[in-house]
């Protein structure tokens, strides 16, 4: 069965591609409906809920006090974890983190870390002794395609609304976490032979490789990842790179709006 369905689906996706159409009627670069809600979980110091079509993702930020690494005595740390638990869909099995969930969390982590939006020095409390460890945990509750973008958006939105709980740890006053920019991920999957934005579950099932691009405020690249089997040409990349610039601006505005800027 798992082989049969994609082969029929692949034929259908190829046919639709010839007409420049998609299964759910969207344009090639068109996203599904996106919603973003922040500060929605009581015990998280920053939180966000993102929906993209039927995909639902939560992210929560927690802080801990730790001793800095000996070679970086004035720097705090950032850790990003994503869990693909069996709640997210029929295809997910219980067990230790799958390679897929590790890839997901590392791609989200790199986009945020490499953008430099969090100054690790600002997380220092006492050099050599006490720094903040920032932990973002992403929880996928419903996977109906494109969890990468949903996770990336939830993570940065949760961070940008996070409050450092200094009072609870007795190290000063609570203050907003300093996040200087808004790195955004845009993902493209080859479906029916051409790349499409914001792939649905069916497009992922009957599609090929995917490309994830994370862009900073100035449109600079901060993380790239090609996943799954397949090859692409530089010309194809140039095309989606152009689209990514537009898509990231849209999502960045959504984050700013939610923050009330």
């Amino acid at each position: 069965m798992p082989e049969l369905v994609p082969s029929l689906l692949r034929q259908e996706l190829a046919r639709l591609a010839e007409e420049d159409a998609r299964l759910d009627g969207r344009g090639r670069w068109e996203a599904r409906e996106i919603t973003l809600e922040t500060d929605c979980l009581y015990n998280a110091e920053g939180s966000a809920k993102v929906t993209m079509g039927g995909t639902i993702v939560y992210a929560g930020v927690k802080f801990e006090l730790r001793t800095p690494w000996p070679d970086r005595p004035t720097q705090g740390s950032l850790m990003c974890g994503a869990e693909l638990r069996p709640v997210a869909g029929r295809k997910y099995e219980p067990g230790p983190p799958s390679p897929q969930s590790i890839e997901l969390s590392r791609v989200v982590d790199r986009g945020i870390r490499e953008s430099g939006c969090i100054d690790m020095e600002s997380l220092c409390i006492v050099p050599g002794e006490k720094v903040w460890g920032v932990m973002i945990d992403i929880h996928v509750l419903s996977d109906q395609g494109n969890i990468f973008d949903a996770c990336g958006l939830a993570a940065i939105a949760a961070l940008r609304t996070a409050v450092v709980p200094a009072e609870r740890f007795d190290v000063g006053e609570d203050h907003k976490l300093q996040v200087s920019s808004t790195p955004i991920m845009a993902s493209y999957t080859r479906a029916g032979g051409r790349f499409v934005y914001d792939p649905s579950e069916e497009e992922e099932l009957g599609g090929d490789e995917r490309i994830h691009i994370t862009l900073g405020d100035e449109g600079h690249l901060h993380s790239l990842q090609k996943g799954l089997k397949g090859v692409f040409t530089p010309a194809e990349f140039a095309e989606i790179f152009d689209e990514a610039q537009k898509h990231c601006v849209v999502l960045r505005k959504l984050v700013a709006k939610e923050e009330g800027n």
Partner: protein
Amino acid sequence: MGGYGDVQLLREDGSRLDGRKLDEMRPVKIEAGILPAADGSAMVTHGLNVAVAAVYGPMEAHPRKIQRQDRAVIDVRYNMAPFSTSDRIRPGFNRRSREISKVTAEALESVVLVERYPRSKIRVEIEILAAEAGTRCAGITAAAVALADAGIPMRDLIVGVASGKIEDTVVLDLDKAEDNYGQADLPVGILPNTGEIAFLQMDGDLSPDEYNLAMEYNFKAAKEIHEVMVDALQRRYQGGDV
């Protein structure tokens, strides 16, 4: 129970720190069918607790050794999100979540008509997104609504509720402080129509009279929560006012 003893949990006038009466429950909100990927789902907001349940199946049970010739097995996972508590919890199962998963599965098996689906499996995933005392009860309530939402036949719903004791006084529905510094906690899973009990745990110290009063509170609360559960399902399936 924590039982640190000298933390004041009742005001001079006998009311609780959050202003509730002794037999007053925190507000409960329920939504059915919130997860598009699942066959059935529900979100229960009980005070500050947020519990989400997803149901998948009935589906083929594998590995085969878990199959039962005469009935379905119910595979429950209760899991707390790392950001659900004040201090982050490391992802993955621990002894507490395993125990809760086990007794919750047994409670659900007591109401689902499992004999209708021999050799199959029904997966119930309970995810706690925010935890402020009472998550196992919120999880049971969410699971029951999600099972009904998935169209799985049941003898009755199950309502998760808890009462306990603080400052030698029996109260309904302990919050976080009351749970931490109280003297007893009695979480139960009640079948609202038959009045039977499918889930029972307790820890702390209760006299027979205190137990009876706690149970009386639990049954009263179960009735209230049951109405909210039915309302959530009706809104989903009868297109009632949302």
